[in-house]
Structures are given as C-alpha cells and as structure tokens.
C-alpha cells in the first residue's frame, strides 16, 4: 500500500496526471477516492476488499477532464478497461493504470496488450453466491424460470441504478429514453421491466465482464448480474471468446462465423 501511495503522490506532484481514482476507507467498506493533489493520496488503500468497479468513472468526461489521469484497478476494473479500449472509448495516452499484483508488487500499464497479458492470468470463476443462485435457476424448468424472473421483475421500479453502475453503459442517451418509438415502456410493469432487462442483456452480449456492479447496485436486490453472467458463460463456446478477456477484434454481435450453430433454423 505504501509503495502505491508514494507513487501516486509523485505522479500528482510531477503533474504527470491530473487525477488518480482509487479507494479510501469508507464507513462500512471501501469507497471511491478522487485524488487531485498529493496530500489526499495518503488516504489511498488497495486490498482484497477493494473490488468495486472504478471503470464506471473512467468514461465520464466531466469527471476526468481532458488531461491524463490514472486509476488503481482491481481485476474487475482492468477487464472493463480492456472492453472500453475495444470500443474506442479510451485512448492509451490519456489513461495510466496502476494495480497491485498477487505478490504485492506495484504494476503500471499503459497499452491494451500489457493489461490484456496481465488479465489473462485470472480465470473468471463464479463466487458462492453466484453458484448457489445459478445452480438453483439451472435446475428449474422453463415455466419455473419464468415465474422466478417474473417474481423478481415485479420488484423492479425502473430506478436504472444498474445502468449507472455499469462501466459499459456509457451511452449519452439510452434506448429507454427513446420515445419515438417508445421501445421500452417507462412505467415499471413486470413486462416492461422484463423487456428492459432482456434488452440490457442483449446489449451486453460479448461485452459483460461479470464484475457484479449492477447486482450490487440494485436497491431491491434482484440478481440481475447473474443474467448477463450466465449469458456470457453460455455464449462463450458459441462465439469463441473468453469471458472476462476482451479481444481486440470487434464485438461478438457485430462479427460472425461461417459455421455459427444453426440447427434451430428450419
């Protein structure tokens, strides 16, 4: 931790970066910290409790401004940063990525390839919460799944906290705000909630890095992060990507293979 603080202080003093996004000790658990001068870098912490995805701030122009900035990134943030690179939302000159690797060494990355090589060591596994709920869902029949999700969806009141927590939801105007035509009804009826979450999952095909930010953000605790996680796991063999390790070539949905599976097509 000490090496990290000194490095950040040095970076800020030299003016190499105008901002460093990291974690500081919060009331119950770590919360994001935005250091703009070396004094505040003293509050920086970086341990296993810091896993919330900071990548969601990286695309906010009004926060990071035009100068170069840095972020201390746990594995979830690194994966999202890779996906944001693939989608032309970040430039390698503007962002410096700091992290502390498994044996406590301070690591700095600039290019996509560096981060990609580092991320490749981490395999995306389900935590027990995910395993427990998903195995329950996987055991259900279609009707039971429908009832389960309709029950869950009835709690949703369209606060869109999931959208604002997700680093890959950086659209200036979301499809739900399109009213000509009104694709997704704004009122929180179960069917329009279901439409919203199906649409969100479809927008995440080949992109979601299962960081769980949306699940954490949901005020009524709907396990919506499991929808995108399960989708990513199921589609990985189909589309030939490795969940959590975005590749340079285009999005899974905007590319295709000659031998894509098609026995469901008559």
């Amino acid at each position: 931790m000490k090496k990290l603080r000194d490095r950040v202080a040095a970076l800020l003093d030299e003016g190499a970066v105008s901002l460093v996004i990291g974690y500081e000790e919060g009331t119950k658990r770590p919360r994001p910290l935005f250091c703009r001068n070396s004094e505040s870098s003293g509050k920086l912490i970086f341990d296993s409790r810091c896993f919330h995805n900071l990548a969601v701030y990286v695309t906010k122009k009004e926060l990071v401004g035009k100068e170069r900035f840095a972020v201390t990134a746990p594995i979830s943030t690194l994966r999202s940063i890779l996906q944001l690179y693939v989608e032309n939302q970040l430039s390698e000159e503007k962002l410096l990525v700091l992290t502390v690797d498994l044996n406590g060494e301070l690591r700095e990355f600039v290019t996509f390839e560096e981060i990609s090589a580092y991320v490749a060591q981490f395999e995306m596994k389900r935590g027990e919460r995910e395993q427990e709920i998903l195995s329950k869902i996987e055991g259900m029949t279609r009707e039971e799944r429908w009832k389960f999700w309709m029950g869950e969806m009835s709690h949703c009141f369209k606060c869109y906290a999931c959208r604002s927590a997700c680093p890959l939801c950086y659209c200036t105007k979301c499809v739900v705000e399109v009213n000509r035509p009104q694709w997704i009804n704004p009122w929180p009826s179960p069917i329009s909630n279901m439409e919203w979450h199906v649409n969100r999952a479809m927008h995440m095909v080949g992109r979601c890095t299962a960081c769980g930010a949306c699940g954490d953000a949901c005020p009524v605790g709907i396990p919506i992060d499991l929808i995108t996680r399960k989708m990513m796991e199921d589609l990985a063999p189909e589309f030939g990507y490795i969940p959590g390790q975005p590749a340079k070539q285009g999005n899974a949905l905007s590319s295709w293979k000659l031998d894509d599976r098609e026995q469901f097509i008559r």
Partner: protein
Amino acid sequence: MSSSTEFEPKIIAFVCNWCTYAGADLTGTSRLKYATNVKIVRFPCTGRIDFLLLLKSFAQGADGVIVSGCHPNDCHYTSGNFHARRRWIAFRTVLDLMGVDIRRIQYSWVSAAEGSKWADLVNNTVADIRALGPYAEYQKVAEYLEKEGFDEEA
C-alpha cells in the same frame, strides 16, 4: 377454414425483401393455400430485424413469430443473414434464460424460389403454435395496467 370455436393463433412474420418476401410472392403466383393467421412485415434484410420488435409482438398479443430470410451466402447484402443468425443465437439464449417460450419463435431460410417451403413453414408453424395454445402467461403480464395488481402465484 377452421371452426370458430378452435383457438386461432395470431402470428407475425418478419421477412427479408429479397428472398422470403419474394418466396411468399411465388407461393401466391403458384396459388398454394396456407393459413390466414400469418401477416407479413417487409424488411430490406434479416439484418434489419430488431429483437425488440419480437418482444413487442409478444407483449401486444402475438402468439407466435416467424423470422425468415435468405439462405447463408445468398444474402443480397452479402452478410445480413449471418449477422441476424448470430443475433438470434444470443437472443434465444437470453430469452430461454428468462423463461420465455422460445418454441414460439420459428426461424427459417426461405429463398425466392421456395414458394412451397414458405407455405409449409406457415402451415407447420400455425399448427405448432395452435398446439402450444395462446401465449397467455406473457399476455396476462402485459395487460398489467388494465387489471389492478399482479397476483404473485398466478
């Protein structure tokens, strides 16, 4: 054609203009008969068919949907159908995960020369959907606003 008491499914067909629409035209010119339940919406290409439209169809009372376009390598725009096929693989996975009855969405390739295949596709799909019955569980949830509340254990 069928007795009025029996359930008549409402089916929408999203088709591409260059192949399946022309195939349906050929079914017409060859005077082949098929069920009246299916109404065709024309798109320039299967690549243009938005998955949200399918959701909207079910929400508005459709019991089944047909999506059909050019065979692989036939696409007038070279790769529209390939993009569509990949989109439907993803869409089916998400819908199935959410418990939507994906048997009600029938995908097919029908070329401009396969008039009879279009007639068979329509008749078989109507028969399948009639067997599945109305998609009540989806529509009941859709009429949420008209009725007072949504009873949990429906």
